[in-house]
């Protein structure tokens, strides 16, 4: 088998939030020495309990926070050593969909404008509106939403706008942080199917962050289990379901409600 080059590699990543407010300036490692690689068309889920460091990894990969140590490589390039044009490309090719759609949308921009801003400047102005309409349609939102502001949408509607916007730059890697946890059941099903579809059609790879083990089987090839800032184990989804010996992992997948 020819081993392809990883699309994303993380080496010895440590994230430490040492803020002024930190209690007695205690060091708080949110992420401790995490390493893994991701390959094109093999989507990875990072799962683990609340506060274990999942979002901190996502933020580091997106270059939205600076890790204390360790490196992140996208297509072999260290994201902290990219030139302006490389960085520009990186930002288009790696798109986030966050846990909280409210923090992701500018409250003063209409939905149409939010997506328009993300569209490439190469696209003709006359085509943009049609593209925006079809991007929204893709996620189940009609034209009546174009002129609305985020506050006029429900939580689920906002999350769909975020997904539409993320897709607008034709990305390669989507970083999805709890993408469906704010949606209702029917929309969860819709978004899972949508993500499945676009994954194939647009040749996308996902880095999915979730504490909901139920959605993994639909979208994911590999799984990394995190606890207290560390990756406990990582393997293919099927392998993990069948063979994991780790108690924490087993409990996680049982996901029982008592």
């Amino acid at each position, binding site marked *: 088998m020819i081993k392809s080059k990883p699309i994303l590699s993380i080496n010895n990543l440590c994230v430490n939030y040492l803020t002024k407010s*930190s*209690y007695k300036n205690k060091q708080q490692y949110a992420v401790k020495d995490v390493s893994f690689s991701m390959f094109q068309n093999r989507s990875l889920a990072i799962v683990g309990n609340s506060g274990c460091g999942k979002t901190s990894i996502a933020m580091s990969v997106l270059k939205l926070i600076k890790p204390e140590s360790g490196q992140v490589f996208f297509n072999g390039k260290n994201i902290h050593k990219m030139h302006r044009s490389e960085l520009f490309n990186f930002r288009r090719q790696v798109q986030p969909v966050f846990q909280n759609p409210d923090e992701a949308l500018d409250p003063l921009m209409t939905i149409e404008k939010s997506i328009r801003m993300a569209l490439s400047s190469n696209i003709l102005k006359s085509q943009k509106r049609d593209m925006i309409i079809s991007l929204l349609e893709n996620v189940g939102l009609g034209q009546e939403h174009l002129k609305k502001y985020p506050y006029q949408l*429900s939580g689920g*509607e906002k999350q769909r706008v975020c997904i539409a916007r993320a897709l607008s730059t034709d990305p390669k890697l989507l970083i999805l942080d709890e993408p469906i946890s704010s949606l209702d059941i*029917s929309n*969860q099903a819709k978004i899972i199917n949508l993500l499945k579809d676009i994954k194939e059609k647009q040749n996308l790879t996902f880095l999915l962050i979730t504490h909901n083990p*139920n959605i993994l089987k639909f979208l994911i090839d590999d799984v990394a289990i995190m606890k207290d800032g560390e990756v406990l184990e990582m393997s293919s989804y099927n392998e993990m379901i069948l063979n994991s010996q780790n108690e924490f992992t087993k409990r996680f997948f049982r996901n029982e409600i008592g």
Partner: protein
Amino acid sequence: MNVLQLKRFNLSVNVNEYPVKILDDITLSINKGKINTIIGESGCGKSLLCKSILKLLPVDSEYSGAILFNHHDKEYNLLADIDLQQVRGKIVSLLFQNPSSSLNPVLKCGSQIIDILPHNKKASKSSKIEFALDLLNEVSFQNPMEIFHKYPHELSGGEKQRFALALAIGCKPSLLIADEPLSSLDIDLKHNFIELIYKLKKIRKMTLLWVTHDLDFAQKFSDNVFVMYCGNIVESGTVQDVFENPSHPYTQALLNSFQSLKKDRPESIRGNISSFQNLPKGCNFYPRCDYKKSICTDTSPEYSEVSHGHIVKCYVQEK
């Protein structure tokens, strides 16, 4: 005993300078010490319903009907500001859907909790801190002191949600309204939430009105369930009525979709929720309904009782 009653409550909000009707003829009553669950598709008006109860409405909203709240044999009219002031954040509190929006970004978590202490001028500093740490403990923080010293933006998604919960229960409300309190929590924390509610229900007879998309939890832990669609309550009854004998086509479709997520192919409900600016004539659900009759496209159905207390707004169930 009824704690809360909504009578023919209607709400219109302002969208691009036009009033748009969202909540339509909502009538419901909630019994003391019960867990009451609202379920339904995003955008159907669940959050606006929660906010209406404490009159936290968008500017230029228009409403009609009545919202009545009972506490210690006194009846409060929550649409009247004088009554509302005695109740909001004291006897009734609301946990918002999006915790960040309700937290003060420039105050440390500890100070925010101390601020909600009743008569907080008299208490000593150490007793205030103790109160805050206890409260943080109650919402499952293992390191309350660390959270005490953090700002809200320094919390993870699940931590924010729990911190907002701490603020909401800090005033010892007799009615807690919680809008999707589970969405950022992992399975263990979801359990802790339910345990906490049970505890408060037991020691203080607290009543819960909550919204959730987690139908596993809704089924397991509710006493009564309200199903909303396009601003109406289309079905309501005990949890057994709704989950074991779903009688509105929308409830059936929702539960079907819920089951499909446990299988191999997720199935959504066909079509999209109609926009409030463009509601269909007749039954709001008919564009997506597999059981529609000709009358459905013409006149909206009335409420009918399938069995005692099990109410459905659909022609199929009308006797």
